[in-house]
């Protein structure tokens, strides 16, 4: 095995890994505050892909301008969805499992909806950066991937700053730690939940645009694959833990890309799932979570 391939795997692992971190962050903000595991996250992402795609194809809008636009639009939709879906759900016998199932329904709706609107064709964002690739050492890395890495790192940085250094972010983290206590302190949990849902959706929008830059193609069927990647990432990092998601994303990205270096293409997903199941049994609450079993 040549060192070149391994190096290539490492670089791609980090680029893809940071993207996965964003997927995980979104899922964990939502799970942390609302105890909702977003089964529809993959579809959210693909909608994000189409968002950037349509803006570019019809209005010629630069993908990097689509990023903040996606963030705002998706935030608003998520904020609204929270008020629409959450109040009844929180009264269910088992809110966690119910919400998981409900988001599966949303995922089917979005997947089918996209198929009806955009049909089953595979799409490619036909946008080229100049130069098309950059030479780093012995490797040529596509500029689009580097730009995506930079944007993703920026978003991760902003999210961390928001969660740890702003009042609202601290309230969100407090809600993740103890949902009951924060209501006693007089925080409006419904609005906070809506903000969390908005942030999760906004992150999905950004990630969606980034996916169309990092990966060569996307189609309406791809949603569940990304959802599963997200699940693996948050289980590795610990459910409901934003920082855990960042670490989990990078670990999984590296594992997956290195697996494609050493193993046949078809076997690579098995490695990812095996890592997840290993983590579940060795540290049931993930790398950053507390252990609790029944």
């Amino acid at each position: 095995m040549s060192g070149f391939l391994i190096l290539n795997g490492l670089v791609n692992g980090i680029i893809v890994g940071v993207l996965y971190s964003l997927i995980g962050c979104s899922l964990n903000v939502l799970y942390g505050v609302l105890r909702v595991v977003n089964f529809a996250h993959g579809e959210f992402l693909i909608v994000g892909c189409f968002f950037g795609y349509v803006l570019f194809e019809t209005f010629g809008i630069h993908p990097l301008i689509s990023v903040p636009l996606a963030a705002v639009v998706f935030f608003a939709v998520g904020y609204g969805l929270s008020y629409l879906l959450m109040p009844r759900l929180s009264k269910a016998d088992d809110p966690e499992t119910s919400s998981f199932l409900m988001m599966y329904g949303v995922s089917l709706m979005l997947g089918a909806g996209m198929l009806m609107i955009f049909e089953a064709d595979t799409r490619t964002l036909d946008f080229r950066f100049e130069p098309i690739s950059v030479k780093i050492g012995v490797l040529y890395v596509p500029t689009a991937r580097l730009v995506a890495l930079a944007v993703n790192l920026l978003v991760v940085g902003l999210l961390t700053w928001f969660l740890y250094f702003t009042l609202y972010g601290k309230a969100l983290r407090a809600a993740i730690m103890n949902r009951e206590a924060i209501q006693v302190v007089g925080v409006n949990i419904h609005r906070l939940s809506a903000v969390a849902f908005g942030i999760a959706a906004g992150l999905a929008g950004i990630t969606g645009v980034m996916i169309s830059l990092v990966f060569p193609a996307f189609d309406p069927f791809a949603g569940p694959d990304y959802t599963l990647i997200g699940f693996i990432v948050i289980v590795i990092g610990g459910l409901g833990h934003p920082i855990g998601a960042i670490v989990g994303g990078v670990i999984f990205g590296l594992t997956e890309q290195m697996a494609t270096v050493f193993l046949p293409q078809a076997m690579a997903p098995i490695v990812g799932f095996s890592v997840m199941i290993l983590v579940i049994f060795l540290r049931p609450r993930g790398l950053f979570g507390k252990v609790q079993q029944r």
Partner: protein
Amino acid sequence: MAISAASEERVAAIRNGMWYGLLLALTVWFALIPAFGGNLPFFFYLMLWVTMASAFNIISGFTGYMPFGYVAFYGIGAFTTAILTKKLGVPVYFSLPIAGLAGVALSLLFAKTLKLNGIYFAITSLALAIIVRLVITNMPEEITGGSFGISLGSRAEPVKSFYVMLGTMLAALLTVTWLARSRLGMALKAIRDDSEAAEAMGINVPRARLKAWMMSAFFPSMCGGIEAWYTNVVDTGTAFDVLITAKTIIYAMAGGLGTVTGPVLGAVIMVWLDDLFWQRFPLLNLFLLGTAIVLLIQFMPRGIVGSLMQRWPKLRRYIM
């Protein structure tokens, strides 16, 4: 209290009479379908979904787990049957029970996951189902037929497989009926409601939930096998289709998890609706299935039968 005991017996007699009467009527009706040239595929799949939803009810409605990879049992049953019948020439009447046992074996392999809490269990179960599919897809073509799957050749016998499906459905329904009134069933419900408290009351939680898990795995594997026999072909794409899990959950939930009649009613209504108009628009079908899930969870989380019982608690004593 003597009077109460007597009326109690009468209530039980009414309840059992209604339920077994319904079962008998259904059996006679279904058994006559092939002879009278009824819509064989419709009733075959109706029975298949009643079986799937009822078996799912054992681990979900009674025990409180949400196995999102439930399709794994179905898929393993389909492939076991196909490989045994086609590649090894085992008579199909032997391969089917073996397929059921293969499902039970798989459930034992996954038994450790029962320790996991709600959402972790659901995610792990989903991941395991995908792993099983990937492993079968990547097995040598001589065994599993690779991505093309296995054709059972001239072995399709729709009428015979129809009757075997009927028998399997009855077995599943009688199992659930027994369970609902048995001590094991009571232990399972206690585990569902509060597993720690159940343990403190002296219930052997790991043992009880393992039994439920195994029972719940046997029937979908049988279904997978019988369907393979019925359609004559098996491939990983359809045998491990996530939608099989989705439909099972939705049908069971629509009727009411944790009740015997709920999943039956849910499956009948949904399969009927499916046949009536959804099937003509495959895309819309998926969309409507998704919508049905969201609306159910929002407005009727306990399903039709469950909601009726919640509204009129007295019904609980008359409906299984």
